[in-house]
């Protein structure tokens, strides 16, 4: 399960960044991949569709969003958190 999430998120980000998923490291940031705000909105959408979760993200102020998009590892953890929450509900 854990690896599925990691792979899934990597695939979604890689598609937006137009790179191979293997190039994404745990500490890779969206900035380093050249993902602008539109691309980030698409990443969020991809995550929601793939994992059937609702991501709390406001493009107005990504840093204030409850969803941590600071680097790849953080994103994976945040998605895992959302999936776990869904299981609890």
């Amino acid at each position, binding site marked *: 399960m854990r690896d599925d999430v990691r792979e899934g998120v990597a695939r979604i980000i890689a598609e937006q960044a137009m790179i191979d998923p293997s190039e994404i490291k745990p500490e890779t940031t969206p900035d380093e991949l050249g993902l602008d705000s*539109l691309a980030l*909105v698409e990443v*969020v959408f991809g995550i929601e569709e793939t994992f059937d979760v609702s991501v709390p993200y*406001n493009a*107005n*102020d990504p840093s*204030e969003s409850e969803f941590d998009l600071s680097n790849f590892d953080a994103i994976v953890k945040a998605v895992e958190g959302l999936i776990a929450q869904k299981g609890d509900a």
Partner: protein
Amino acid sequence: MSTKRRVVVTGIGVVSALGTGFATHAEGLQEGRVGIAPITRFDPERLMVKIGAEAKQFEGADHFTKSELSLLDRISQMALIAAREAIEQSGITFDEALGLRTATILGSAMGGLHTQDENYFAVYHEMKNRVHPFIVPRLMGNAPVSQISMAHGLMGPAYVVSTACSSSNHAIGQAFHLVRSGAMDAAVTGGTESVLCFGGMKAWEGLRVMSKEACRPFSKSRNGMVLGEGSAILVLEELEHAKLRGADILGEISGFGMTADAGDIVQPSLEGASRAIEIALVDGGIDPSEIGYINAHGTATAMNDRVEAAAIRKVLGDHANAIMVSSTKSMHGHAIGAAGSLEASATLMALREGVVPPTMGFEEEDPDIGLDVVPNAARDVQIDTALSNSFAFGGLNAVLAMRRWNGR
């Protein structure tokens, strides 16, 4: 000595979240009444954002018969009622000769979205195999303009301008050009829009730029736009034409500037916005120091408000510190293609009545803005010259310059 024809406004009609009728809209703006509330005109349960500035007072059935309604999307209904009010207030009579010399130009970004939404639902979800025979003449983007031209016998140029959030300003600007150039003697112009239906809201939600709580333009705590709906219609006339018939002149449209950023599809540009402001001033023969008030685009997104403030400062320099800048979207919401028309009405109200409408929902100064945004209460100040900004997705900017009518 200028030989340029001058263009004045002699009638205004409005449907907005603040109410139906220009007087109600103006009163709401002066009282700082916020028309943003939980959505009630349809079930918002599956929406993430459940607030909007609905024109809750406005029900088509109060104004039209059932057979009339079969041809009228909500945007046509609102535009027809606003146009009737504007024309009545103006006291203008469109006989055949004047009808031939009157343009009808409206802004609308999305067309008859309610009709599309309801009928896609019928065929895709309810699996119906046929829809009402008049769906096409109801949903087509030009329907409101055609309905107004038919209702009042307006036979000059008639079309809808679709430039997202700038649609109305582009429409009013085009009408202004036609009257100023002498091509037309009068114009019925403005905008109409309603994206407040389930599908419309879902589309906007996708962009992640909407607030779930409130519209707080220029406030440090702002967290996005709030959608609205409505229509405002203006009657424009050549000055001598208006004077000759003894019309009550409500204000003057004196300049218009439009530019394209040629940059990003959603991100605004300082360069494009400031050029549009500058061109409006030059076109109107207005010195930056004459400006007293700017009705801002002020969507309450992080990006728009910051870039808009910088654009104002770039063109006006130090004079930016001496003027008032407010966003009335904080009250009537962001009516997209109708936004510019609701805001032109607000600006004309400010010029005529000497009351500058506030930016409501303001909580906290943002050092990136640093303008007098008339926070939370209208202000009694006589202003003589004002601008109304619209900056659209797609990088299309349109700025109107208006002057108080002082009898000459």
